[in-house]
């Protein structure tokens, strides 16, 4: 993980006073978090299991989308290689605001067991992360818990926040 404090949430503006408009908008947002299908390695299998019938992500309003333009949350499920780092940033930049990132599994959090030259040591070196989900691989229940925590976080944010200047490649 990034050793230095990167102030990703600079414009998030916490603590905030929420108005009823914020509450309505956040209620809508938190119950329709569309996720970008982003399985990079074995954690992707657990992410797919969470989306399938037994764990049923749809009841949280979380539907997997194949395009970053339609997605609200990027679940980084798996090992990020250095070759791919450029593309994760590009996909993140293509997602429309507001957007969130869940870093799923040890590999995405810290590089995990791949302490080698070719693995990015934590996706937060490349994109800002809202929620770190530990485990190798985290079970679908943990991913559900992470999504529920993210919903809780979304409900505590101001609905209209300043758009961060985006950095394109």
């Amino acid at each position: 993980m990034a050793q230095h404090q990167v102030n990703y949430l600079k414009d998030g503006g916490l603590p905030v006073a929420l108005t009823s408009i914020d509450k309505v908008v956040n209620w809508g947002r938190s119950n329709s978090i569309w996720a970008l299908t982003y399985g990079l390695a074995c954690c992707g299998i657990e992410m797919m299991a969470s989306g399938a019938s037994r764990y049923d992500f749809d009841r949280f309003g979380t539907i997997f989308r194949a395009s970053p333009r339609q997605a609200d949350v990027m679940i980084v499920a798996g090992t990020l290689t250095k070759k791919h780092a450029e593309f994760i940033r590009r996909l993140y930049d293509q997602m429309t605001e507001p957007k969130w990132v869940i870093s799923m599994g040890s590999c995405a959090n810290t590089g995990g067991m791949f302490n080698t030259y070719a693995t990015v040591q934590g996706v937060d070196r490349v994109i800002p992360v809202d929620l770190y989900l530990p485990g190798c691989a985290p079970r679908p229940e943990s991913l559900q818990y992470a999504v529920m925590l993210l919903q809780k976080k979304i409900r505590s944010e101001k609905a209209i926040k300043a758009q961060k200047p985006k950095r394109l490649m």
Partner: protein
Amino acid sequence: MRPYTPKDDVQKKSYYTDRYWVAPQVPKSDVSEDAVFAADHAALRAHFEILEDYIQRGQMVIYIHPKDNYAVLEFLRDHCGYTQLSELSAIDWIAQRGGFEVFYQMLSMTKKKRIRVKCFIGEHEAINSVEKLFRSADWSEREMYDMFGIKVNNHPFMKRILMPDDWEGFPLRKTYPLQGDEFAAWYEVDRIFGKEARDIIGPEIRDTARVDRYDTERFAQLGHEVPKGSTFDPNQPKTPLAYQEEGGVFLIEGFDETKSKIISDRKR
């Protein structure tokens, strides 16, 4: 990007050496012991110079001159029935012998035999492509170039295959550090944000022993919901898992742990 500077053999250091240890050798036998191999060997020797030959683990190994590699493989394919090239790569002998050993692993489906053809090239020498003979050599030769830096002449698309195109260094050489050189360590930061972001993002944390259980900056505490950056007291009572704020959320059903049922029949 800065050029790659060669380092000493960084992976060579041994943690323990036994003074009386002798490296085990896989026994080798003479080629004449196997009639099929002996016939192939005789046919080859009529056309090419064979530097060394033996049978090891039921496979014939022959050493040839690197300039002969295309002709030898063509001969083996067309006249000896070794119609498949199952593997092709190199071995780094730079420190001991100043070059690479390139090997071609051949398979004959009719004879049910395998032959390994080896040749030795210097560190800066190139080798001829066998891609025209075996399509499988296409990616293998690119991988050999990517991992060892061995250039292959007459290859249709001589480019890196696994590492990014602008990568510096050849990762499977013994001089390449496992955790990457400086170029590798900063690759994604340099590529995406530019060099000036190095100070902000900071170096990679590679120390696997660096685990602080009570670090609330980076790790969650199971069963405790502790604000980020606060001090964590391990004796504090557990927080019940709360998925929702107090008061609930409009139209969304809250989870009541006391009413939940644990399924004992996993096949349900």
